[in-house]
């Protein structure tokens, strides 16, 4: 189903949804944008080509959430899991694809994360394609694109004074009941915009055989070279839409077991109770991060664990660029003789 939504009608459309849903959309926060609930005064869509600073994965895997309440006397209570219905409006395809990738982590055959599942069930995702490339994104390099539809219930294409609304699911359909079908002309215009945007995204590195290069160079000095200036902070992982690691901690003083975002870039992430740390330095930790995204995800589900959003490139405090690191990895030899 392909419909047209005039931009002038958008504020009213958003307000109409607010009766039943909490509507999250990118709004201005300091110098960047952030997914926040719409209140009446802010019924404006931000005109910006790039994505929010914090990815919308935060709406499905919160930065901090209580799992269990307990008392000193040994009683337990599951956390309240009341999630009211939500619409996430203006998700970029890279972020939506990432949430779908995370489904493979949190909704497995044997184990399901009830918190993640509940949030997914209660959320309708409306995407907005990127008609101009962002500065550091590389979605097409990793197999996706600025108008990718995976993980979305609806995809919007900006046509200037209206949006093309492509409904992709049943829940998406219920939101746009009173719109007209798109004309042939507008459909063609949208197609052109989408193709042009896709072609305009530069290819940042070669993915063919990248996994093999990474796997076969486990002991290479390359890892030391590329990670020299890495500070071991959490910026790349916390801003990454596909990173999902978490730490579970008992906040005894407020009697809750809490799950917080965690990062493999911290030294203590892999520190074991014995004192042994299998990843003692930034070398091992950087190797882990790159390998996880571009090799181990492939081993586990056959897809690269990165959707090319570019946030890690833009916000690394020391200017490390994962695209350059992977180009360098591609220049490594295939088979390395292991002189043990």
């Amino acid at each position: 189903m392909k419909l047209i939504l005039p931009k002038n009608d958008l504020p009213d459309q958003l307000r109409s949804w607010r009766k039943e849903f909490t509507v999250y959309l990118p709004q201005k926060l300091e110098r960047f944008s952030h997914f926040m609930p719409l209140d009446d005064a802010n019924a404006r869509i931000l005109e910006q080509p790039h994505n929010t600073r914090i990815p919308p994965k935060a709406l499905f895997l919160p930065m901090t959430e209580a799992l269990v309440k307990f008392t000193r006397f040994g009683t337990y209570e599951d956390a309240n899991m009341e999630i009211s219905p939500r619409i996430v409006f203006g998700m970029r395809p890279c972020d939506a694809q990432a949430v779908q990738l995370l489904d493979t982590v949190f909704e497995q055959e044997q184990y399901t994360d009830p918190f993640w599942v509940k949030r997914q069930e209660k959320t309708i995702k409306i995407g907005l394609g990127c008609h101009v490339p962002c500065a550091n994104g590389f979605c097409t390099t990793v197999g996706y694109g600025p108008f990718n539809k995976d993980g979305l219930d609806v995809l919007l294409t900006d046509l200037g004074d209206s949006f093309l609304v492509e409904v992709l699911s049943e829940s998406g359909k219920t939101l746009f009941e009173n719109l007209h079908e798109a004309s042939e002309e507008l459909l063609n215009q949208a197609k052109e915009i989408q193709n042009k945007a896709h072609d305009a995204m530069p290819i940042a590195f070669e993915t063919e055989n990248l996994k093999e290069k990474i796997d076969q160079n486990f002991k290479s000095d390359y890892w030391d070279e590329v990670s020299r200036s890495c500070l071991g902070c959490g910026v790349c992982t916390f801003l990454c839409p596909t990173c999902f690691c978490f730490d579970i901690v008992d906040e005894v003083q407020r009697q809750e077991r809490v799950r917080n975002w965690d990062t493999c870039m911290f030294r203590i992430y892999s520190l074991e109770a014995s004192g042994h740390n299998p990843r003692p330095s930034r070398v091992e930790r950087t190797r882990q991060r790159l390998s996880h995204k571009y090799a181990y995800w492939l081993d586990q589900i056959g897809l690269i664990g990165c959707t090319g959003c570019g946030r890690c490139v833009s916000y690394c405090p020391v200017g490390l660029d994962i695209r350059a690191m992977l180009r360098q990895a591609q220049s490594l030899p295939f088979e390395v003789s292991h002189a043990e």
Partner: protein
Amino acid sequence: MPDINALRLEAKRVLREGIVDVVVGFKPGDSPLHPQPAFFRNEDEVEELIHNGLCKNNLANYLTRLPKQEKVGMLVRGCENRSVNSLIVESQKERDDLYLIGVPCEGIIDWRQIVEQAGEHISLVEESETLVTVHTPAGVNSFNRFELLHESCQRCLYRNPISADIVIGDPVANGSLDPVAQKVKDFENQDIEARYAFFQKEAERCIRCYACREACPSCYCAECFVDHNAPRWTESGATPAGMQGWHIVRAFHQSGRCTSCGACERACPMDIKMTYLTEKLNHDMREKYNFECGMDAETKPPFQTVTLDDKNRFFLGGGN
């Protein structure tokens, strides 16, 4: 503007003559906006050495990350030199194991302001003493350099390295103390509701990524207080109490140890202001103890030097 050729020559010399094992400086990054800290171990590598207003990291940070026994050469601006001194005072490095190549500093440009004003597609940035010229697909724009500087640099009191082995470049005029002190007083003079509102608004954006901690040369604890479960000083998640606790304590742990370099703010992905906290503490160290961090490599900070002379400074006994 830094004399890159002279800097390279000196870096090559100290490597060639075995005075140092490594020279820490900057090299071009993959984006014109982001030069990267770099570690040069031979003369060929030094060809990549650069130094400009977009070099936003405090290199002294790496002194506690490189192997302890290495002799380290480092390009240092004013704040970096003082950070190095502070680390020597705290026994994190011996002065004899260092060769400091001083670079007078005209301030670090806030790259996010460039993006805000010229958009995110930047192909080239050129600098002069007064202008920053930015090339984008839409055209070329020039901006007033001072206005683009990071706030810490606009009010910097020590732009020239004070104890480098060699200084390459002409001295730069320092900022004056009065506006710095005034800024702290202005904040203090706001009413309590306004002060708290500001603090709360800044702290609540925190995502606990600890980029501020990792970018700071003074934050080198093997175990940070946030990593403790017993005692549990404050929450580790992005909760209101946790975020506030993090900012309060990280700043407080810098009392007498902060050189106002601003690397913390520049590293933060959420644009959180923190230097207003450390500047208050730096101001108190100056006013109460006549102490400025890093002015030499011997003087211990006030919290390490208690004296009976304090006895009449604070509250007297018996009820207050």
